């Protein structure tokens, strides 16, 4: 019983923390309709900045600093694709490649960094709350609080006039231009915000795990997409508010599935990535597959009728 509680607690913690990546992808992939592959490197950037600054004694300042760094990474990707004519996927990959070095430098010319006996936002909260009553749940309060706050702010932002023009950019760029707004500007703002969210996720995860490794972001973008798709399957995506709730739900469900696989060993844990990759590919391909199957059915029916 105790083990299950602990597992659930960890799954909830991580679910909320990684939900920020899914939220970032909701903004870039779903709303802006841009496949932003900056995500992997940006996540590590957030974690690296956060851990390095926490090690220097500024765990709280570390969070906005990480977000700012993430926004800068997003700006570079956006600049490449909107002003320099680099195809959007390639722009993300180029930034991502460059970030490897930036992350290495941010961790003090090292491929990993850890926090030993220094304050993190989590230990600071632990020191002010009564742990006799809430035990380890303070971590969840913080992780959940940050993610829910980010979700609420994103929701409010997307209701502003700037937010509306960002949403219209993914829908109909001609119309954005016709509304006297430059789509290059809305894409840039959108990618800055989404990468700030990704870096925020890295920043929280980094301080939670008290360590960061230069490769810890590999595949984060696909996991984020998996969370997005799981959430949308469960909650639908009819409105912006529902979409934001969906990514949180999706991320938490994903972490529970992960924990379940981890403890039951139903699939070897090394194979989970392959499994997730297949699920994500199938989910995104679903409309095309459905269409192909439908056409094949009609063809077979026509064939049978013709043979009579």
């Amino acid at each position, binding site marked *: 019983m105790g083990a299950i509680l602990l597992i659930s607690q960890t799954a909830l913690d991580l679910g909320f923390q990684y939900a920020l990546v899914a939220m970032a992808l909701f903004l870039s992939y779903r709303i802006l309709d841009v496949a932003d592959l900056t995500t992997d490197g940006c996540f590590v950037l957030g974690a690296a900045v956060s851990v390095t600054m926490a090690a220097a004694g500024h765990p709280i300042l570390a969070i906005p600093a990480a977000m700012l760094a993430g926004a800068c990474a997003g700006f570079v990707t956006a600049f490449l694709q909107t002003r320099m004519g680099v195809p959007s996927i390639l722009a993300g990959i180029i930034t991502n490649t460059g970030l490897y070095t930036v992350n290495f430098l941010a961790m003090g010319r090292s491929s990993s960094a850890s926090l030993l006996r220094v304050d993190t936002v989590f230990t600071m909260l632990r020191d002010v709350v009564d742990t006799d009553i809430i035990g380890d749940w303070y971590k969840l309060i913080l992780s959940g609080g940050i993610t829910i706050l980010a979700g609420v702010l994103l929701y409010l932002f997307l209701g*502003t006039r700037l937010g509306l023009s960002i*949403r219209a950019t993914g829908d*109909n760029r001609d119309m*954005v*231009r016709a*509304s006297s707004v430059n789509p290059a500007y809305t894409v840039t703002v959108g990618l800055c915000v989404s990468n700030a969210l990704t870096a925020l996720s890295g920043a929280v995860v980094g301080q939670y795990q008290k360590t960061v490794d230069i490769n810890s972001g590999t595949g984060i973008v696909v996991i984020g997409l998996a969370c997005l798709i799981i959430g949308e399957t469960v909650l639908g995506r009819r409105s912006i508010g529902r979409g934001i709730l969906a990514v949180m739900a999706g991320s938490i469900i994903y972490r529970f599935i992960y924990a379940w696989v981890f403890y039951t060993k139903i699939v070897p844990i090394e194979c989970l990535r392959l499994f997730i990759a297949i699920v994500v590919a199938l989910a995104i391909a679903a409309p095309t597959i459905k269409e192909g199957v439908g056409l094949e059915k009609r063809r077979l029916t026509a064939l049978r009728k013709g043979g009579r």
Partner: protein
Amino acid sequence: MLNIVDISKTFNPGTINEKTALSHVSLHLRPGDFASIIGSNGAGKSTLLNAIAGSFYVDNGSIALDGKDITFTPDHRRSRVIGRLFQDPLRGTAPSMTIEENLALAYLRSAEGKAPFSRITKKDKEFFAEKLKLLGMGLEDRMRQPVGLLSGGQRQALTLLMATLVTPKLLLLDEHTAALDPGTAEKVLELTRAIVAENQITCLMVTHNMRQALELGNRTLMMADGNIVLDVSGQERAGMTVDDLLRRFKAGTGKDLDNDRILLSD
């Protein structure tokens, strides 16, 4: 109002696909002018509208609107003063956003509606509802529905409203009723006429309907091979029939008007 002097545009210069779409076109529209353009396939009608809207920059010549040179102004800046409708009713609206949100975007062109972090106010909504009522399609009761649920005609009417929500100095209509069924086309055209007249908007309309070209507005232009070959207005235009127009076209270019979609009458 609009002053185009000697503009040219060649697409894919120096390649096998080289095409001179506009060749030394000059055109002057007075404030309140409503000119319609007809012409053969590939005569440069849409290209002329694209040049004015800023979809591309012209190779030479200049374009001025209301005394201001806009030759090198990017399209999203020009859209503050130029409204535009396309043939495809899907091009002017964002399908997954609500009617209200679409109107709010169009309202960004105004001075009041621009503050980036402001939200749609109750006053805005009332203003939008009032404008929607003028369309007579009951859209004012569906403001929170996504635009993707509307029919082509409704979307085109909404686009018209959006293009004129903040009165533009120039309205460009590129066969904006051509993709609609005849009844809806008539209705959208009627709305166009009413809105343009009420706000005294200078207007340039491409059409393939000869009768429309003669009846609507106060000027008729004909284009061929990237040039304006005929420009009639006033007395001369008042007595003109479709046949006269075709004859004048042939006299001017030495060719028959060749447009596979042209409607000589309806």
